[in-house]
C-alpha cells in the first residue's frame, strides 16, 4: 500500500477498528484519518465485530487482543475460518508481548503485529508493508 496522498491506495477502503477502550479506538481512528483513510467503523470486541464483518464489505481490520467477550486472536481465527472473510488483512495492535502469543498470532494468519505502546510511524510502516505484500 502506498499511504502517501498521491498513492494508488484506495482511501475509501472500509476499515474496522476493534478495541474495548474507546480512547484507543479514537487514537487509531485519528492516526488512520491522518494517513488518509476516511471510511472507518468501530467495534468494542470480537463478538460485536464479527457480525459487522459478515454483514458489511470491510477491507481491513485493526484489532486489539485482550478484550472482554471475544478476544482479538479469536476474532482473527474466526475471520480466517470464514470463507467470505478469510481474505481480509488483519493487524493486531496489542499490549500482549509474550513470544508464544506472537507466534500464536502468526500461525493464526495475522498480517501485522504492533505491540503497545506504539507510534504513528510504526502504524504507517506496518500498513505499508501489509498492503505492499498483498500487492
Amino acid at each position, binding site marked *: 500500500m502506498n499511504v502517501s496522498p498521491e498513492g494508488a491506495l484506495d482511501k475509501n477502503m472500509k476499515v474496522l477498528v476493534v478495541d474495548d477502550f474507546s480512547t484507543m479506538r*479514537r487514537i487509531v481512528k485519528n492516526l488512520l484519518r491522518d494517513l488518509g483513510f476516511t471510511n472507518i467503523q468501530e467495534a468494542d470486541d470480537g463478538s460485536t465485530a464479527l457480525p459487522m464483518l459478515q454483514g458489511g464489505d470491510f477491507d481491513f481490520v485493526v484489532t486489539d487482543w485482550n478484550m472482554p467477550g471475544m478476544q482479538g486472536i479469536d476474532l482473527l481465527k474466526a475471520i480466517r475460518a470464514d470463507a467470505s472473510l478469510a481474505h481480509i488483512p488483519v493487524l493486531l495492535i496489542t499490549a500482549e508481548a509474550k513470544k508464544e502469543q506472537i507466534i500464536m498470532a502468526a500461525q493464526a494468519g495475522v498480517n501485522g503485529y504492533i505491540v503497545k505502546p506504539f507510534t504513528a510511524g510504526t502504524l504507517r510502516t506496518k500498513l505499508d508493508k501489509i498492503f505492499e505484500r498483498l500487492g
Partner: protein
Amino acid sequence: MNIAMVGRVSLEQAKSLVEFLETDQQDKADALIAEIQNPINSELFAEIGKLTRQLHDSLNNFQLDSRLNDLATADIPDAKERLNYVITRTEEAANKTMDVVESVFPVVDNLAERVRGVNPSWTKLMNNEIDLPEFKGLCVDIDALLIATGKETQHIHSLMTDVLMAQDFQDLTGQVIRKVIDLVREVEDSLINMLTAFGLSAEKPQENASPKVGDNLVEGPIVNKENRDDVVEDQDDVDDLLSSLGF
C-alpha cells in the same frame, strides 16, 4: 506410658496394678487396665485433643483479628471504587486531550492552506515580478491571513491550556493508586499470616510460581520486561521474531 515396650504389659504396670488392687483403688486399676489394652488409642486421643485446642485457639484468634474483617468488607470494596475512579479520570483526561487535538487539526490545516494560497503572489513580490493589481490583491489576502492567524493562534493557545490542565489526573490517580498498593501489601501480609497459622510455609515460594494468565495466555501490559525472557522488549523484537519465523 511407654508404648515402646516389647510385650503387651510391663512388669512395672503389673506391679502398679497389684498395688492399686491391694490398696482398694479399683478405679485407678480399671484405668490402668484400659490403658494397657489400648495404649495407642489413648495417645491418639491426647494428640487429637491437643490439635482441637490449637485449632480452636487459631480460629478464635482469626475472629479476634477484626482487621481481616474490615479488609474484606470495607477496604477492598473501597479499593475497587478507587480503581474505578482511576479508570474514569484517565479516560476523561484522554478524551479531553483528544477533543482539543481533533479541534486543532482542521484549524492548523486551514491556516496552512491559506498560507499556500498567498505563496505564489508572495514569491512574485519577493522577486520583484508582481504587478500592481496582483499586489493589491496580495495585500488584501495577507491582511485577512494576519487577522485569521492572530485569532486562531490565540484560540489554540487557550486550547493548549486545556490540554495542560487535563494532565492533572496524574497527581490524583497517583495518590489513589499508592493507597491501593498499601492495601495490597496489607492483604499480602494477612494471607501470609494465615498460611503460617495453618502450618503452610510462605517462606519458600514455589519453584516456578507465576501470576495467573487468562485464555490465550492473555496478561496485558508486561511491567517487568527486564526480568523476563518469555516476552519481547519492543517493536523491533516483534519484527525480528516474526521474520525469524519467515513472516
